[in-house]
């Protein structure tokens, strides 16, 4: 792992990182946006998963619910990643030694991979009800994305 230390140091010393650290309000403001986006990102996922389990919006095909939520999911993900990168830059060295941060990156990698290679394709083709495979995929997506949130919150608490 030590091979990537220079990268973390470079992030930590970057102009953006220093600017955020030098401002009293930048970090809290960015973190607030990170939290808004969390609400939208996880919220849109919860609605879709509830639909796949047949608990809401049964009159709408699953693919239709998915496409209605897609722009909100995409935009919140963009805000999430942008604000997340800024937060990371400002405390890159702290993150390097932080076990929760490593877990978060682990979950994030698999959440993104799963969503864009498997989950999005599954929901695109589901109609009135989700087969067992679709429900399992929904549960996996929830575990991965809430795992990202859980590990993210733990960065501040556990180190």
């Amino acid at each position, binding site marked *: 792992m030590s091979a990537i230390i220079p990268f973390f140091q470079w992030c930590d010393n970057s102009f953006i990182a220093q600017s955020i650290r030098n401002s009293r309000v930048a970090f*809290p403001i960015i*973190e*607030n946006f990170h*939290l*808004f986006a*969390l*609400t*939208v*990102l*996880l*919220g*849109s*996922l*919860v*609605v879709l998963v*509830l639909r796949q389990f047949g*608990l*809401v*919006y049964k*009159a*709408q095909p699953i693919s239709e*619910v998915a496409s*209605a*939520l897609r722009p*909100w999911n995409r935009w919140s993900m963009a805000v999430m990643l942008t604000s997340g990168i800024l937060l990371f830059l400002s405390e890159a060295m702290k993150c390097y030694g932080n076990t929760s941060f490593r877990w978060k990156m682990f979950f994030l990698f698999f959440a993104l991979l799963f969503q864009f290679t498997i989950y999005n394709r599954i929901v695109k083709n589901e109609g009135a009800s989700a087969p067992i495979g679709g429900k399992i995929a929904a549960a996996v997506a929830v575990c991965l994305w*809430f795992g990202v*949130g*859980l590990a993210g*919150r*733990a960065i501040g*608490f*556990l180190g």
Partner: protein
Amino acid sequence: MSILSMCQWLQDTNIGTSIRESIWVFPIIETIHVLALSISVGLLLVSDLRLMGYIMKRRPVSEVYEQIKPWMFIGFAIMVVTGIFLFWCQAVKAYNSYFFRAKVVLLVLAAINALAFERGIYRTVDKWDNALVPPMEARVAGWVSLIFWLAIITCGRTMAYTF
């Protein structure tokens, strides 16, 4: 008895002290409070967006709103319960925080907005249930709700920086 001394008494109770001094309980409650944002405000967002005429426009407003409501209430119930425990263990700090006070005021305003919507324009929903874009009063209720909740999240997150 002043509010401040009531807050002091509350956080000195066994439950308040135990939560505050525990290694795990406080972070666990706090994490649930944050992640349940997705089930409370996250789901509310969908019905607000339908009211504004931005999402699921071909579905009746009452369908989008009523079907998500029970789940939304579960989310808000989790928020209230975890929020009460978080307040319980640090009532004095919370009481002294302007962000916390603003949060309480905004919560009341958001509740009034929701009630005014239910008792007001929503009573005539039959007339505009299938409208792609609901009437002005409903759109305003959606916008106001969304703005209040973003402000509530901001106050909640920011008060923790002042502790």
